[in-house]
């Protein structure tokens, strides 16, 4: 095995990985031009059925939603085309801006916590000899519970007056918290709930990715005498890059549209302190029967989600090794 000179605290571990891959003739994924030139045979048609299916399923709904968003559709009155009227109304609606702010705050808190904890948990479970079989399954199980149960569980556990959370806090000598009932803590609490439920999801993806990494690279680094932290930072993490992008994309689309648990526990309150964009759209549409405006909110939310996915889709190239 070829040796690469190692300097402590330098990115040479990833250099080791790169050279190791080169030695074995793996392509350099970071540079698409080179990759494309080495293309032999085209397989793009293999993506055609999936694309055709997706277009067939979502084409009409999107066209319909955009037509709705450009019209005034209030139940009981004939629909009327108003162009960008709904979007002008959005721009001056404080509830919309509040909803956007809450959606992004919730997103930032949740995605950060879930990616960090999920990576940690995924690696822990993957390498631990104790975590096999049932233990492993239990560790990834919270996201398998139905959303209504998570919501009702949150009601029972976090209720400030009869919930077990404050009871436990009191037992260990801490003061009570209002959790979901205080405008200043509600988003944090929801982020916590979501993190509890979905960190294992990230962990499962990371675990799968880690277990399929080429083990001889790790052996090479092991022989070079790297500390566990160096190994994680310069080898494991870069190699997990694409896996982490996948986890982040799949979590992003869901956190930004997060609905069930918020609606069950607070219905967007107190006040409008947890009325995220998706909650706002639901209330405008199905509670207040203002479908055109609700659709405009949904289209805008979709654009926000699309933006975040685009960021990660670009990252996919940057982190490829």
């Amino acid at each position, binding site marked *: 095995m070829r040796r690469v000179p190692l300097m402590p605290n330098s990115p040479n571990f990833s250099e080791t990985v790169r050279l190791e891959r080169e030695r074995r003739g793996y392509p350099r994924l970071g540079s698409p031009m080179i990759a494309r030139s080495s293309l032999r045979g085209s397989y793009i048609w293999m993506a055609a059925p999936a694309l055709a299916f997706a277009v067939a399923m979502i084409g009409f709904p999107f066209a319909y939603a955009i037509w709705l968003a450009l019209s005034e559709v209030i*139940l*009981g*009155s004939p629909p009327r085309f108003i162009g960008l009227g709904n979007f002008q109304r959005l721009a001056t609606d404080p509830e919309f801006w509040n909803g956007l702010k809450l959606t992004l705050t919730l997103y930032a808190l949740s995605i950060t916590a879930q990616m960090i904890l999920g990576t940690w948990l995924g690696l822990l479970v993957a390498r631990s000899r104790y975590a096999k079989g049932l233990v492993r399954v239990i560790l990834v199980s919270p996201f398998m519970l139905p959303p209504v149960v998570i919501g009702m569980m949150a*009601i029972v556990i976090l*209720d*400030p*007056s*009869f919930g077990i959370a404050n009871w436990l806090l009191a037992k260990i000598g801490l003061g*009570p918290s*209002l*959790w*979901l*009932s205080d*405008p200043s803590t509600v988003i944090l609490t929801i982020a916590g709930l979501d993190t509890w439920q979905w960190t294992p999801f990230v962990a499962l993806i990371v675990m799968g990715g880690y277990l399929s990494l080429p083990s001889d690279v790790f052996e090479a680094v092991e022989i070079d005498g790297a500390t566990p932290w160096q190994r994680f930072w310069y080898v494991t993490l870069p190699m997990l890059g694409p896996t982490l992008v996948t986890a982040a994309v799949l979590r992003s689309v869901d956190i930004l549209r997060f609905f069930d648990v918020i*609606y069950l*526990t*607070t*219905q967007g*309150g*107190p*006040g409008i302190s947890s009325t995220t964009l998706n909650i706002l759209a639901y*209330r405008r*549409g*199905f*509670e*207040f*029967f203002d479908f055109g405006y609700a659709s405009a909110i949904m289209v805008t939310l979709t654009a926000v989600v699309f933006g975040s996915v685009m960021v990660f889709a670009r990252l996919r190239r940057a982190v490829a090794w």
Partner: protein
Amino acid sequence: MKKLQHVVFALGLALGASAAAAPAHAQAFNWRSQDGQTINLMLNNHPWSQAMRDLVGEFTAKTGIRTRIEIFNEEQFRARLTTLMQGRSADLDVFMSLTSREGAVFHRAGWYADLAPMIANPALTAPDFNYEDFGASIRSASTFGNQVVALPINQEGPLFYWRKDIFARCNVAEPMALEDLPDAAAKLRACDANQGVWAARGIRGAVPYALSAFIYNLGGSYALPDGKPGLSQPASVRGLEMYANLLKNYGPPGALNHTFTQVIELLGQGRVAMTHESSNEFANIMRFAGRAQDLGVKVLPPSRDTRISKPVAIGWTATISAHSRRQQAAWLFLQWATSREIQAKLVTAGVAPPRASVFQGAEFNAWVAEQPIRKAWADALIEIGRTGTGVYQSPTDRVPEARDLIGNAVQQIVQGQMSPADAARAADAELAKLQ
């Protein structure tokens, strides 16, 4: 002359025959006229729906019509109903509707079949159906213009529940006037700091249901004489203030997220001494150990000054979809479900019937005799059926939105963001935009 007599006689015969034929035709009403049909029912999760699911076999036995019942919780019920009706789905024959809330909008959207011609047609309607047995106010809540859109299936409203044992232990008298509530709350708090005192709804959209009797009894209302929003009238503000302050000073922590789910847990587990919560929860509360013995229930007491008692009383209804292709079979179901016989059975499942006559039946009396509190509950329901109102927001078609704004005013007062007068004024300004 004789000939003429014959003619007259013959004529008389013919007339008599045709006169006889008319009732014969009217009696052509037949419960089995739609034998073999299948109808789809979509119900909101409610004690009535649960009871229906258990009773509907009797309907099939009587009519030969098979039923397929789907029950959804309210949030999902709304999403499914709205989507199916907008899609003009013919799969839906009968659905539940809260006409006091959404009736005007659904009526304009053309979702309800017109029941008036069916009620008037003796070939379609059982002779003993007696539509007038439903109270006038109940009937009017589901009538738009000449169109009868739905039949009432129950009546419900918030009731005042209080723990007689705790009141006795603390030497606090049963509140006889609305103004006694804050005093009673203060005395209970002073008597036992560990006993929760008060709980009530705090979630915006759910608040007005429990709040409105406070406003009405104190002499307030949601509308000015000219129909403009009137939450900022002094008496209305007093009502807002009393409700919000009870919640703020004596309510449980986290009350702003509370709705029936939490309030009933608190009352059932014995964590609060009083509340103002739905009559529907009665059967659920009785399941908790001890509550059947130590609880009292009655209509929220009237104000001492105004002597007004104007509780909220609403009723769910059953209605036929305008897109249904089996309207006659559906109509038979509606008649059966709202008949005196079936409503008498529903009482024992905790569903208060809209037909006042049911409260005098033998079945009902036997059920009441088992527990004294049942009598109190039934009496309260009879009373709100007589004195209650289903209108508890400023005049508008956009009812859910208006109630949301009213609930928001309460939340602002509880959170200390605004004074009651300011919150009411701000709400009025928003409410005016919905008119």
